[in-house]
């Protein structure tokens, strides 16, 4: 009996052991995550991978441990917020953008660090997408037509992201003859193996000229490959529109006009300046060319989403500097309360981004008004300026916002020189794209400009909530400027390459922007 029980006991134990087989305990695979190897194995996964590239563009990761926990770096929100706060046309009211606003950043400041980090994170997803699609097409999983559409979109995003980073981390195209000064590394290899890490780490910064060549090549490919036409994804026309921006920075005026002309009839300015910013119309208006889309559950969040920062939390006001600019008429529709502007306690805030509850406003990367003004400027700056064409284009943007266009519109008399016209266009850009993040890239490209140069970062109104009285129209704002200008010669004009890059990449560590 005793032995029988002992045997029974052992049997239970042995049975227990058998049930604890190695497969059940040790051979576990993730339930939450699809293996990287499987990401391009079916058409639907490939389509999702493409969307994942846009996810990286719109949300990023910032310093979060959650891959979808980002703050809209680069194309979801940060390009607007950083682009505005580096310039003088907004006032930073709280702490949030202060380091950018007052140029007190350094190689460890989150704003500039994650611009770089999330920018390259997006670029790597683009490169992996291109490689994955090529492989899938070779295996016959998708057709080459479908594949080309994806590759075109990936190249589009790769190009515009490199271009965006260039404007913060490198001097403008005309800084040296032939743009032979340092740009940024132009990454074209999807990195997901140690060998690729090793070889890519050896690559130094490309020159600005090389970067422009690659950007334009990618945009040309995008133009020829993309078949998608929706506004929330890269399209053939978006690639063309973006080329007008690139050529403008490159000061290749003829090509700005050539590319811009391709879009004649494809887009039209909306009747009212606020129409593209009606949330429901973000993707259905005639003017928007490429914008990122968001949903209530997938957006840059309360700490970044445009509606949150600019409207909900009111962290940034319109600056009296631009608000009181005499070129911006008092009855201009772009001042219309409740449409494009919201006044709180006398301070002027933008109303371009409205959904403070669900943060679903699109982030406007490029719209047709910019293409028109790019062309206007190019016409004015041609070796043989075409002032008539330029004026017409400028007025086409400006007139829709004027209360009485018949009397208020610019004429060949009021803008009677190339310089006057270019200056008017540049002011118009500040007004038209106010709170759309365009200011910095204009400041950057106009350093040492022959007609309307800007020296470094202009002086700004003191950070903090500006007094209501400062917004009274009638006279231009002439100071005080609590935040001093940073001259072009100052190293702080450029963002430093992040310290975490220097620590991990000996090649780039030797190529930090001078002064940092």
């Amino acid at each position, binding site marked *: 009996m005793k032995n029988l029980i002992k045997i029974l006991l052992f049997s239970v134990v042995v049975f227990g052991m058998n049930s604890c087989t190695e497969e059940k305990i040790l051979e576990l695979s993730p339930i939450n995550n699809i293996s990287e190897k499987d990401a391009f194995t079916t058409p639907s996964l490939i389509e999702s991978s493409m969307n994942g590239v846009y996810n990286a563009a719109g949300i990023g990761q910032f310093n979060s441990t959650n891959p979808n926990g980002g703050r809209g770096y680069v194309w979801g929100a940060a390009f607007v917020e950083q682009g505005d706060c580096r310039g003088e046309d907004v006032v930073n009211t709280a702490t949030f953008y202060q380091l950018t606003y007052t140029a007190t950043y350094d190689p460890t400041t989150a704003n500039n660090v994650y611009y770089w980090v999330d920018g390259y994170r997006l670029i790597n997803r683009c490169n992996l997408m291109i490689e994955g699609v090529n492989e899938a097409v070779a295996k016959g999983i998708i057709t080459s037509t479908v594949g080309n559409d994806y590759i075109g979109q990936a190249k589009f995003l790769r190009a515009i992201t490199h271009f965006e980073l260039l404007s913060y981390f490198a001097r403008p195209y005309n800084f040296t003859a032939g743009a032979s000064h340092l740009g940024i590394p132009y990454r074209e290899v999807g990195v997901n193996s140690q060998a690729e890490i090793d070889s890519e780490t050896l690559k130094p910064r490309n020159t600005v000229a090389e970067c422009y060549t690659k950007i334009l090549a990618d945009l040309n490919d995008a133009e020829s490959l993309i078949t998608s036409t929706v506004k929330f994804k890269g399209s053939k026309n978006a690639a063309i529109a973006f080329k007008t921006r690139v050529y403008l920075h490159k000061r290749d005026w003829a090509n700005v006009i050539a590319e811009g002309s391709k879009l004649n009839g494809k887009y039209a300015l909306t009747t009212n300046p606020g129409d593209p910013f009606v949330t429901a119309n973000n993707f259905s208006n005639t003017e928007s060319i490429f914008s990122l889309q968001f*949903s209530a559950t997938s957006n840059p969040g309360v700490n970044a989403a445009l509606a949150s920062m600019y409207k909900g939390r*009111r962290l940034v006001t319109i600056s009296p500097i631009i608000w009181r600019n005499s070129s911006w008429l008092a009855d201009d529709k772009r001042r219309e309360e409740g449409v494009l502007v919201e006044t709180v306690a006398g301070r002027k805030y933008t109303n371009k981004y409205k959904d403070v509850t669900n943060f679903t406003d699109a982030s406007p990367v490029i719209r047709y008004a910019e293409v028109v003004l790019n062309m206007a400027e190019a016409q004015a700056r041609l070796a043989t300026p075409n002032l008539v064409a330029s004026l017409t284009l400028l007025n086409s943007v400006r007139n829709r916002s004027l209360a009485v266009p018949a009397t208020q519109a610019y004429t060949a008399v009021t803008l009677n020189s190339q310089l006057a016209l270019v200056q008017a266009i540049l002011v118009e850009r500040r007004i038209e794209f106010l709170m759309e993040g365009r200011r910095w890239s204009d400041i950057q490209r106009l350093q040492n400009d022959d007609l309307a140069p800007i020296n470094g970062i202009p002086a700004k109104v003191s950070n903090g909530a500006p007094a209501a009285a400062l917004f009274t129209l009638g006279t231009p704002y002439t100071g005080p400027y609590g935040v001093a200008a940073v001259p072009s010669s100052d190293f702080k004009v450029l963002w430093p390459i992040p310290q975490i890059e220097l620590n991990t*990449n000996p090649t780039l560590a030797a190529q930090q922007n001078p002064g940092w």
Partner: protein
Amino acid sequence: MRSKFKWIFSLLLALSMQFVFAQEKTVTGVVIDKSGIPLPGVNVVIKGTSNGVQTDFDGKFSLKSKEGDNVVFSFIGYKSKSLQINKSNNYNVTLESDAVQMEELVVIGYGTQKKREVTGAISKVSGKDIANIVTPSFEGALAGRATGVQITTANGIVGQAPRIRIRGIASISSGTYPLVVVDGMAITTGDVGGIANTNALADINPADIESMEILKDGAATAIYGSRAANGVILITTKSGKKGTMKVNFSSSLAVASAVKKYDLLNTADFLVISNEKRTNRGQAPWAVGSAFDTDWQSAVLRDAPQMNHSLSFSGGSEKTKYYLSLGLTDQTGVTLSNDMKRYSVRANIDQDVNKWLSIGTNLSVTRTEYNGLNTGGNSLSGNIFNAIRQLPNTPIYDTTNPTGYNITLPLSTNTVGQGQNTDPVGDNIPNIVYVLNNNKYYSKVNRTLASVFANAKLTSDLTFRVQASADNAITAGFQYLNPIHGDGRSVNGYLLNDNTEYLSWNWQNILNYKKTFAENHNLGLTFVSEYQKTKYQYFFGSGSDLLSTFYNQNLVTNSYATKDSGGSVSENGIISYLGRATYNFKEKYFVQGSIRRDGISKLGLNTRWNNFPGVSAGWTVSKEDFMSSLRNTVSDLKFRASYSQVGNTDIGNYPYLGLTSSSPYGSLNGLGYTQFGNNELEWESSIKTDFGVDLGLFDNRLNLTFDYYKNDIDKLILAVPTSPSLGIPGNTINKNIGKLNNKGYEFSASFKAIATENVNWELSANVTLAKNEVTKLFNGQDILGGGSANVNIAPNIIVREGESINSLYGFQYWGVNKANGNPVYYKADGSLVEGNIATSSYFVFDPNNPGTQGAASSLSASTDRKVLGNTLPTYFGAFSSKFNYKNFDFGFMFRFSGGNKIFNSTRRELVNQNLNNNGTEILGRWQSASSPGDGWTPKLWASGNTFVNLSGNATSRFVEDGDFISLDNVSIGYSLPKLVSEKIKVDNFRIFIQGQNILMITKYRGLDPEMESAGVDINGTPRSKIISMGINVSL
């Protein structure tokens, strides 16, 4: 009750008498102990028969026997005694306490060992040492009780898990929490989900703990192999003992209050300081109005009542032993909206089935409910972040406001009312009192720890134990963010319900062999196979854009416009085979060796399995003959040495795989690359060496222990930083690269100063000297931010070769230029630069010529930052005393620690330059060349935080020493004298008063030098000072 027992005893006596033979005579007597106290319940049995009785409550027995019978007197804890019945009919027997049986046993993992046989470094803390300390969780009371062990409660939030470090920090990227084993099963630790902070260890009722063993060195931990790198805490819960039922009741009531509050400005000073910020910058004053002088900080802090009650029943018969307990804890936190309630039940039962087989269960069911709040160090609604910024010249309430609170209208502004001040409060913070009174954060944990075991005595030397256990924590979380004001305003209110489940099961087979050969050779062998699997499952549903504030208690279908849900699952498993051999000769020479082979699911096929050996040896010198002459002085002297290799499995669930994550684009499904794969990933290994000495003097009245340890951690799985411009997910790859070591000396002493009938005085002290050094990183690259993802911490710390892990990293501050109030810093080359506040730019500074601005210069985050200090204490310890005089007892414990630096980021917050309140330190600011202030605080400059205070980087301006001595607890108790307690029919009745965190002696200028995380003090909720009183009753 006593009469009832007497009745039961009589019955037993009567029953046993039925078996008595007629011709026998009746012998009687009394059994007493050495001090003459009668022993009830002693077994009195005639040898070779089952005839026997038990002594009654007066120690008396009466037994039928005949001359020549051998009668054996046996009682647990005493040496058995036998005597032969002679002519006499009356025998008085004195039992001596059994030195062997009473000898302290130490739990060592898959078994126990006599303390004097232990060759590893193990600290034992008895449950009763911490029984009366009011703490949400037992580990909070462990601080100071063992060498090499640091336990820090970094703030006063009830429910936040304390930080535990056993012999330092043993990993950079992976987990640093010790393995916690309760009654043989490794349990889930850390936060177990929900919304409010939870602490898995708080689900154990401290009153149920019999003892805690902290395994520190390799020899002790090697038996836990792959999971032992951070040390192991073994918890043994109480079990019943043979004998009458014992009832224990203890109850305490306490009041907790903030140990200290921040010294903030009152309205008068606030007005001066705020407006000076503005006038210095050439701007109009912004602070106006002195009608109010509000103490916002006190509005979010409070005196909090706390109570603990526990009731237990334990006892056992010859075959059945049981322990049953009930516990109730209700603790309110010192900050508004924070509390914890715990209801616990435990049943431990042990049943002998027959002579060779026993079975038993340990079962504990706990319900722990936490209410929490936003304590974010940089959250606008973070309780302290917000409260210390509020303007004292504005009120909390405003009866004219529709909410009744002082809130800016329209309410969409989401900012506290600015009163007469010309500007809104800095950072647009909301009214924190409204927020705390309206938002809800809770976690409700249902925790079951269950195990069943069977012990089979296969032969007299060989036992087999099988144990199956399960640990199940199910946490329900809920969050409500009010739509009117605060964090929920932006999304028009938010509701979230979530559910988190951790389920682990564990199966162990343990074969134990113990035999003494040829009298002197003692051999022990243990073989174990163990299987464990843990599954984590989580889901949530949430809604925002609420229909009404009415919906604030749970998700209610269609009461919100925006809907979201999500979840995740992960699992991991481990299979282990291990063997341990112990051998000693004459209990003089000890050798022990163990080897464990572990396979884990967290690594790839090729690297999954690994072996973890450990060896140790000991020599009890005092037993040698040549020591015999010294035996009166040196009662015990033992040398120990050990070496082992252990691992760390807290490395994430699938660290070696290349993975994607679902990454939607707007409403479209998306897939994104999120983890770089490295299938060559291997085990982290930790090589632990320890040399120790145990010394007992004067009949062990003075006990000294010394240990030297060194833990070399190799093949650290580092999230190796990759160049961000490559776009690798997270910019890291998990690689086995990196080395660090922890070295230290541990001393402890205990001294029985007085041991007389009426007076007992016991003193003990311990000191640990510890050093941590990172010896190798990938390509020698610094890791900025250490392993921290916290934006308040990461910018201030670094992991660098040759330095202690997570050292402070930033600019060296020189002071203020007395000529103009500008801050002056050191550059890397030792030269000085002055930061011109007006232009936010740097110039060379000449202290001999401060009035003249030097050449343009810079302060570079790349090249001018340096290590500002180590954040790990280099020494720590405690001194405690227990004193008894008759029925009074008095005890206290001082704890000390230091050698570390703290970056007091809260101090930097308190000198902020926005329209916010400040700490009193700002009164020492530079005002003019003739009134230069404290020489440390620069000129004020409105909205100039980033430059005046360098808010993006650490500076030595706010770095302070972390040294302190604290009176952790002091207690006075009074037990009723035996005479009285017998009259009211209780065994023991004690009342006590106790104080915790009563006194802190430190130069640290923050609230408390232990309120740091990775060396950074940032807006913490004050820790609590607790005064409690209570009773312990046993029946």
